[in-house]
Every structure is written in C-alpha cells, then in structure tokens.
C-alpha cells in the first residue's frame, strides 16, 4: 500500500504510520533497526529502496529515505509511506525535501527513528566528507558509504581511510567477502606454509581490489602488489606466493573463478560480482566496529602499486609454479 502525503510535516507522517499500523495490524512491531538512506531525488533513490527492501527480508527495518530535491524552491516536505507488498518486510517512508529543508535532513529523521533500535545510515551516492560528523551520520551506529559510486573511486577510498571512525563501513569492502572467504579457506588446507608475497590484479577503478590488497597486507605483513588491469571488471586475480608454489584465484570474466594450487587439480567456483542488496544485507548483519576493515584501510599506503610492468609479476609467478 502506498500513501502519499504531499506538502506535509513529520508529525503528520508519524500519525499516519501509527494509524496504518492500527488499521493493518502489527506493521512496525519487531523492526530491528532504522535504515536511513540519503540520496538525491531520482532513479538512484528507487534503486536504493529496492536494495533496502530486499535486505529487509533478513532484517525487518523501517527505511527512511531522504531524497534531496531542488534547493532553490520554497521549503517543503513531500512524504510517501509504503507498507506491505510495496515495501518487502519493511515500511518505507520516502521524504522529498526542497528548499532550505534540504540541509536539515537530520531534523526530518529524528522524529521518525524507531525507539531504542539501532540506526544505520547509507549514502548510495556521493559520500559526505566525514560520515561520522555528518548531521545524519551522527545519528547512526553504522554508516555505509560506497567508494565505487564516487566520481573518483580511489579518492573515495582515500577519503574513507582518512575519515574512518568506528562504525564506518563501505560497500567496496562487502563486495569482496566471497574472495576473502575463498582465500582463507585455501590457506586452511595443508601444506601450512607462510605466504611470502602477494599480488592482486583488478580494474583501475575498483576500490575493492585496493581493499583486498590492503587486507592481505594487514593480515600477512608481507609485500603486496596491486596490479592495474585497465578499467572495468572489478577484481580479476589474486596470487599468494608460497615456498611450494603459488595459490592463484583467477576470475577473468567476472563470473567463474578458478583456484589453482601446486600439485592439485584446478578447481572452479561460481564467483559472481555481488549485488548491492547482498552487500547491504551483509552490512546490516553486524552493527559493531569492523576492525578488520579498519586495518585493511590503514594498510593501503603499504601496498605497492604497479601498472605497466604487471606482466613481469605474472611471469615470475608462473616461473615459481613450474
């Protein structure tokens, strides 16, 4: 059900939410968190809502969408409430702000936060300079940005690093969880040797590749190279050099990964690029500080970048295997 409340107030929105609950049974009971989405008005807002609806199937939540409209209009708030089939397992309140109100999103959100439940803020598009100091970000226990959605992903990642505060996280980090899982599982198996060095290859515009390199650097404390393979395609390969030969996880087509280890048959695994909704679901699963992410960010400067000469590295990797 969709209820439109044009030119309204937050108090009226609240009244309508309670009324909907009384009319339609327990709609908002059992909600575990409030998810605030800060976005510009338009197609991006709908995409974000769709991802949030999908995530709400695991984490029933109240979704508050702050859609920033034209700044030069008269101050106005248009609200739309979606419940039931139109909102997954959540209730969605889309609030379009105009005029001066655009800069006061936090004030609009405060009356609508669920009592006692944690607040998560997500910026699907441009990130604020310091999420933890942003007025809406300050309300939240968890602040989700997306380095890949910035005009310059690498600068977005650098900003995430310099502004890191406990509770920050980035979708570029959740995008590589499957890679991390597979690499970890590969090291679980004998021979239990130290890793001597590592190389991560991926698109120039893939902050996830950078983060993967940073993570390996922070965990293994060995030289890690970040090799650029041109734009597009995300992460394409990881090589962990060990005495007995390299462990390689290669995904050239963005779909199927191949795990190669010395003395063992090649193993294939479905390794698709993750959807935003899956990443978001993962992000909502935990609301405490992610120290591992922090360490990966901090290790970024210690990762050696290499561009044109990446052939040499793959060659030496091949040499070690033979």
């Amino acid at each position, binding site marked *: 059900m969709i209820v439109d409340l044009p030119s309204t107030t937050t108090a009226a929105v609240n009244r309508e939410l309670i009324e909907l609950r009384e009319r339609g049974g327990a709609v908002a009971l059992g909600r575990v968190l409030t998810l605030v989405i800060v976005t510009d008005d338009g197609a991006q807002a709908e995409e974000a809502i769709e991802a949030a609806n999908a995530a709400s199937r695991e984490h029933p939540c109240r979704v508050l969408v702050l859609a920033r409209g034209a700044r030069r209009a008269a101050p106005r708030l248009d609200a739309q409430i979606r419940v039931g089939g139109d909102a997954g397992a959540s209730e969605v309140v889309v609030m379009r702000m105009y005029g001066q109100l655009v800069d006061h999103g936090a004030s609009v959100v405060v009356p609508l936060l669920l009592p006692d439940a944690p607040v998560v803020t997500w910026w699907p598009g441009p990130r604020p300079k310091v999420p933890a100091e942003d007025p809406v970000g300050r309300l939240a226990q968890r602040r989700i940005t997306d380095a890949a959605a910035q005009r310059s992903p690498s600068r977005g990642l650098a900003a995430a690093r310099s502004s890191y505060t406990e509770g920050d996280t980035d979708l570029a980090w959740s995008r590589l969880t499957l890679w991390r899982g597979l690499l970890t599982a590969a090291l679980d198996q004998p021979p*239990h040797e130290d890793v001597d060095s590592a190389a991560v290859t991926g698109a120039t515009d893939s902050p996830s590749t950078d983060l993967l390199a940073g993570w390996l650097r922070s965990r293994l404390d060995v030289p890690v190279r970040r090799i650029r393979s041109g734009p597009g395609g995300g992460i394409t390969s990881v090589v962990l050099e060990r*005495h007995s030969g390299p462990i390689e996880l290669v995904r050239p087509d963005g779909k199927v990964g191949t795990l190669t280890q010395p003395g063992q048959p090649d193993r294939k695994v479905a390794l698709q690029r993750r959807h935003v909704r899956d990443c978001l679901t993962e992000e909502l699963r935990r609301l405490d500080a992610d120290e591992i992410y922090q360490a990966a960010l901090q290790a970024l400067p210690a990762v050696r970048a290499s561009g044109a000469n990446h052939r040499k590295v793959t060659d030496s990797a091949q040499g070690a295997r033979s």
Partner: protein
Amino acid sequence: MTGSGWHRPRAAETWRNPLRDPRDKRLPHIAGPCGVTIFGVTGDLSRKKLMPAIYDLANRGLLPPGFAVTGFARRDWSDQDFAEVVLQSVRDYARTPFRQDVWDRLAEGVRFVSGSFDDDAAFDRLTDTIAALDRMHGTSGNHAFYLAIPPEAFPVVCKQLARTGLAEHGDAHWRRVVIEKPFGHDLHSARELNEVVNEVFPEDSVFRIDHYLGKETVQNILALRFANQLFDPIWNSHYVDHVQITMAEDIGLGGRAGYYEGIGAVRDVIQNHLLQLLALTGMEEPVSFSPDALRGEKVKVLSATKLVGPLDETTARGQYSAGWQGSQQVAGLHQEQGFDPESRTETFAAITLQVDTRRWGGVPFFLRTGKRLGRRVTEIAVVFKRAPHLPFDDTMTEELGENALVIRVQPDEGVTMRFGSKVPGTAMEVRDVTMDFSYGTSFTETSPDAYERLLLDVLLGEPSLFPVNEEVELSWQILDPVLEHWAATGTPEPYPAGTWGPPAADAMIGRTGRSWRRP
C-alpha cells in the same frame, strides 16, 4: 624466491591461518575441499531437502571450489541423468534463486554409481569414482557419506564402506557418515545400531541428523535463555508451574505405512525432536558454546529426566479416525493404505516427565505429539505460577489466566508472552493479552533451512548441533518403560482427525489441575 629453511610446513595443531581473525565476523566459513556421497538418492529426503540444500549452500558461496556430489542407487542412470534429477529438485525446492553459473559449477562435480547395497562390484566402482574425483576434481580425499536409507540397510552399507576402504580416515583427509532417525526403536536396538556404525566410523565422525536442531528458532532458545537477564531469574521451579512441549502435524500417514506401522509417535517424534527441545529448555547454562560443553549439559539434564507414574494416568495415546481436517474430509488410520485394520500403532502420544534437578524439582514437563491434529505447529510453552496474592477481587481477575512464555518453533517462528492487562473502561478488570516477537513471514523466507546449516556443519566438522550416542541412548532409557507398558496393555484411543487428540490426553493433564494450551 627467498631462502628455503624458513618454509618448512607446520603441523596442523600449531598452524594458525593468518587470514582468520575471530573479530572478522563477516568472513564466511567455507568448507575445505570435499565431496558428499548420498545413498538413497531416489527418496523424498534427498530430493526435497538434501539436493536443494546443497545448491543453496553453493549459491551462498559456502561450498568449496571443486565440490562433488555422488549418488548411489539401484537405477540405470548416467552421470547426466542424475544431474538432471538433481537439477529438477533444485528447481522445485531450492530456497535461493536459480543461477546458471552456480549450477554449472555444481553439475561438473555430479557423479552417479548404479548398484545395490550388497553388490561388491558397485562399491568398487564407487571407490574408483571417488578416487577419480580426488585426482581430477579436487576433493582431496575428504568425503561425507549420507545414509538417506532405512536403518536396516546400515549394516550392509557400513560393511561395504569398510571393505572398500572408503571409511578409512587419514592424517590428511577425513571420512564422515551422516545418519537420519530413527536411531533404533528402543535402547537395545539403538545400542546395536551404534555398534554397527561405530565399528566402521569412530564416534567423532558420526553425525546424527535431528533437523530440529538446525532450526533457527531452536538455536534461539539458547540465545533467549543465556544471552538475556530477563528470563533466567524466573526459569525455575519457583516461578514455573509446568512446561508443555507440543509438536502437532496436520498430515496423516497415507503412503507411509512401511515406515510408521509398529513405530508410532513416541519413537518417531518424542524420542528425538521433543526430548531435544526438552533438553535445551531445561539444561543448565553451558560454560561455553563448545560442542563438548553443550552436549555435556544436554546429557546432564537428560540423565535427570524420568517418566512420572503411574503410566496409566500420566500418559495418553491415540489413533486418528476419519473426520474433517479443516476443510478436507480425511480417512482414519485403519483405512489408510498399508495399515493393518487392527493396527495398535499410536499416532498421538502424550507423556509426563519430571526433571530431577534443583532447578526443576516438582515442575512437570508435558510432551505431546500427533498426526492429523488441529493444525501444524511446534511450540514450547513455559507456563508460570499465578501471582501468590492478588490485590483484586475475584470478579476483576475472572478472565486472567496464567502468565506464559511460548517459543514458537514452527511455523510463524517467534516468541509470545502472555500476561494480564487492564481492560480499558472504568471498572478494574484484568484480562490476558499477548505480546509477540515474530521473525516475520518474509524474514524466515531467507533464513537458511535446517538442512543447509546441518550439512555445512558436517562438511566443516562442527558437531555442536548433532546428538551424540549418549543422548540417543539416554532418551531411549527415558522412554523404554512407556513403550513396554503400552505394548503390554490396552489400545490407543481413537480421536477424530482435525481435533487436538483423544480425551485421555485432556484427562491426563486434567488430573494435575492443569489444561493443554490450544496452540
């Protein structure tokens, strides 16, 4: 590369994976290289539960690269035919959306071996198939054998697995066996069965599936009790009047005579599911969530659990007769195909147990289960004593019942609390109201199926959610007297399908001045 002296591989015990960190809670636990061999692939269990669970695990990225599934059955199938069968059951029953990439990878590891259990040549072929998988596909010698077959066939399959060396552990690889209920039909047969299995597989590589333990709501019992301060202080005989554990099914037994005739509700449901629920409800706090600590507490509470006598008055049994199950007219047990018209197999059973610990002294535990009852529901109801003194007069509290905390295991998973509240209006009048926590209907849609969880735990070698030998034997020890008593005298009382069981069940609980909750 750097010098060689530093790189000697280390023993598994001293090795710590530098990529793992307990603080890294996102990192999925992906099983190491392995494969699973399923005996009885043509059955309902593997079609409706196992194969979809395998696909769902693969889709969630939790299976290792190069995972293999081998089917064994008396069918003239090729690998491709079997892959088709698996694909069909994945399409029909999988929880997560179908993705061609995931299926293609899975299909590369699907094998089929045709033969019967007493056919040596077939098991030799199975051995070759598994060796080839290790060599070509990367299963690294780690294999789980899932016996989705009747227990009568266990001895012959186990012997074959021993003969061909398939059951043999190594330092570098593991072999595990997964078995489904029934784990015997009384203490004696359970011991025999355990001996048969343990002769071939040591106890720590035997995984007994009780799928109830894989359910989120059942694991939530532990969270509810031990992660909260709110409930523990009242979780004892000072405040609890009694506990009711119910598992009701609305289905009948048409087509399941071969399995059910002579087994009955106690063996089918109470011995495993309900006694496990009782153990989780009644146990003391484990010092940690390690498998040993958890099982230790369960064993303790089960060893303190006894039937309350005299059995004629504290137990009840029934058999459904023809009637209306909701909007549908259904046959009684005696008319169901395959059942003896004189059958004495009970389809409803209710028993009274006592748990002789300081925590539970004097608190009866009522367990009941049945087929063709009012609706499908499983729940644990902890019913509290009445307030010792009410400052209200009788007319004010006429409609006030006892406070209760109900853990709804399935369906509509959640927790309900019942307490009194003032009815709005001028006069003081107190009536029962309920407060509900629900996982929400859409929420449970995406929470993993019990079989997914359990199968992954088998592959990871994580035994917490599997009952051990000792638990199985203790539960038979508890139930054997009632089975013997019922076998010796009387017959089950008929109850019309679609009702909540025979009058004897109401009489049984009524003798103690209590009554069954209508779930």
